[in-house]
């Protein structure tokens, strides 16, 4: 990951938007439990995991696995029954809830923009609660709109119902980031968006995260979204039990058990290829003749495989950014990645090149 892991004592700093500093803090869950009175099964059972500062942790699992509950325990929208949650080494359980929540960005699927407030006032919500000066709020709103690539003059004074679903979702994210929180919670933020816009918003999220480098807890039921967005993925099973907590590559290479293997899907080899670029493939040397079809070395291997198959299995010429020919991508060369039967031998650099582009 490009410089993502500068993790000094739970603190990471990145450059927010070119003008301001951005904060991030390490998040640690220790044996966190949630039980509801009158129910035998726990909603969350002894959940322990650490999210390094500036990383995206995706909570994923089938319905009933408690992923949203787990997320809502962190800003104490739900009170844990046991265990501890530490943000930057400090327990959230000892803190005043309103003060704590103002320090944690919060994005939900239905967005929950205030319909009676303009985009400007929506984004200014937490800064206003924190008592920032007018000038500082005004400047911050402009900065946030720029960050999510919306034109301030065009949208700042509109009401949420005058905007498209995708715009609203981006404004929801801008609102959550306005007070520069060290932690961002996102509960299926793209769940209600059509597939084309969802892909666009996912890419926009990765671009944004590369700039702000927040610690993010992201809930989804979509494993593909988890693989695309997560630095680490926590797979939960029914009863809020942590099935596996690992990077996307580890998860696909070594699913901890049958449940995880089934959850990531039978096509996990293909998904794994999606995390790797042609740069990692041992390309076949050119031997005079050059196939007409060509492909960029930055392409992920899954797309490259698809391109080769679409061409009837004929090799493709791999070129770098300057158009320099690097070799041939053949079916065999791609298959070679798995040749040892041990996919962990595959370089795990993939997520970085796919992400934070």
């Amino acid at each position: 990951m490009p410089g993502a892991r500068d993790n000094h004592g739970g603190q990471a700093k990145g450059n927010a938007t070119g003008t301001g500093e951005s904060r991030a803090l390490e998040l640690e869950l220790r044996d966190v439990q949630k039980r509801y009175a009158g129910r035998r099964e726990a909603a969350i059972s002894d959940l322990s995991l650490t999210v390094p500062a500036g990383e995206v942790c995706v909570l994923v699992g089938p319905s009933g696995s408690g992923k949203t509950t787990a997320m809502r325990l962190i800003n104490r929208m739900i009170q844990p029954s046991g265990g501890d949650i530490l943000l930057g080494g400090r327990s959230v359980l000892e803190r005043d809830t309103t003060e704590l929540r103002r320090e944690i960005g919060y994005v939900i699927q239905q967005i929950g923009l205030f319909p009676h407030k303009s985009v400007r006032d929506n984004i200014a919500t937490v800064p206003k609660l924190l008592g920032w000066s007018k000038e500082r709020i005004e400047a911050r709103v402009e900065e946030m709109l720029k960050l999510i690539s919306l034109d301030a003059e065009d949208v700042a004074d509109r009401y949420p119902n005058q905007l498209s679903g995708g715009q609203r979702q981006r404004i929801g994210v801008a609102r959550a980031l306005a007070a520069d929180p060290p932690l961002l919670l996102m509960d299926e933020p793209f769940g209600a968006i059509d597939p084309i816009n969802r892909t666009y918003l996912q890419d926009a999220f990765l671009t944004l995260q590369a700039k702000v480098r927040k610690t993010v807890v992201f809930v989804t039921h979509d494993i593909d979204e988890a693989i695309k967005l997560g630095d680490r993925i926590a797979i939960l099973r029914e009863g809020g039990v942590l099935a596996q907590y690992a990077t996307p590559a580890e998860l696909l290479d070594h699913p901890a058990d049958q449940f995880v293997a089934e959850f990531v899907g039978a096509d996990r080899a293909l998904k794994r290829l999606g995390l790797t670029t042609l740069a990692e493939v041992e390309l076949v040397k050119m031997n005079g003749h050059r196939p007409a079809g060509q492909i960029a070395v930055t392409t992920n291997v899954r797309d490259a495989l698809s391109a080769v198959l679409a061409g009837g299995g004929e090799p493709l010429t791999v070129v770098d950014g300057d158009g320099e020919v690097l070799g041939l991508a053949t079916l065999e060369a791609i298959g070679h990645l798995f040749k040892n039967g041990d996919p962990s031998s595959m370089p795990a650099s993939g997520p970085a090149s796919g992400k934070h582009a």
Partner: protein
Amino acid sequence: MKLPLAAGGPIIPHFSSSGCERNNQLFCWGWFKQNWAGTLWPALKQHVVLTLIAVVIGFAIAMVLALIAYRYRRAEQPLIWFTSFLYTIPSLALFELLVPVPGLGLSRTTAEVALVAYTLLILFRNILTGLRNVPEEVRDAARGMGMSRRQMLTRVELPLALPAIIAGLRIATVSTIALATIAALIVNQGLGVPILSAMSNSTGPFKTELLAAGALAVLLAIAADGLLVGAQRLMTPWVRARAA
């Protein structure tokens, strides 16, 4: 001409009156002009005051009740019963029931107590419905961003309930304007006074006065409603905002 009291004899003037009045025709402009400054205009002003006091006090009480019911769901049903009970008491009976109460008697306070009682059900229900209709995700987002209960109420829930609250105020105001005419039975104020005096004319209702006072009450109701509609447009610009 002196304002006639509720218990009246003949109203139609015996001298210096036109043929129109003596024949009790449908509407005599001459009488209207002659009695505007002395009778109708003061009665209209009193009517406005009666209504304003009733709606303002009723709104304050209903707001407190609605906030209690909003916060404590168990209080909702008893409060609905209570306000509905008040609403169902026949107005004539209520005025009569209140007169013997010590400290009330034949006073404006008595009239206001009755008028306030009738506003409560509508205002209470509308305020509560408005608060309950605030979308759950909006409330969740407000809480998740660190608003206190009070901040949620004043910055999110009440503003979003405004359309329903103002709708309630419109109904309460218009119905109070109509009902306040009956207050003339216990207090010598409002547009009910000329209506009563017109009806107590010994030779049948004096049509001009009856029509004039009645029409003023209707016009007052329309004007008040219009003002509230205007206020709502000013206060809730987001309701009308649509994609450009």
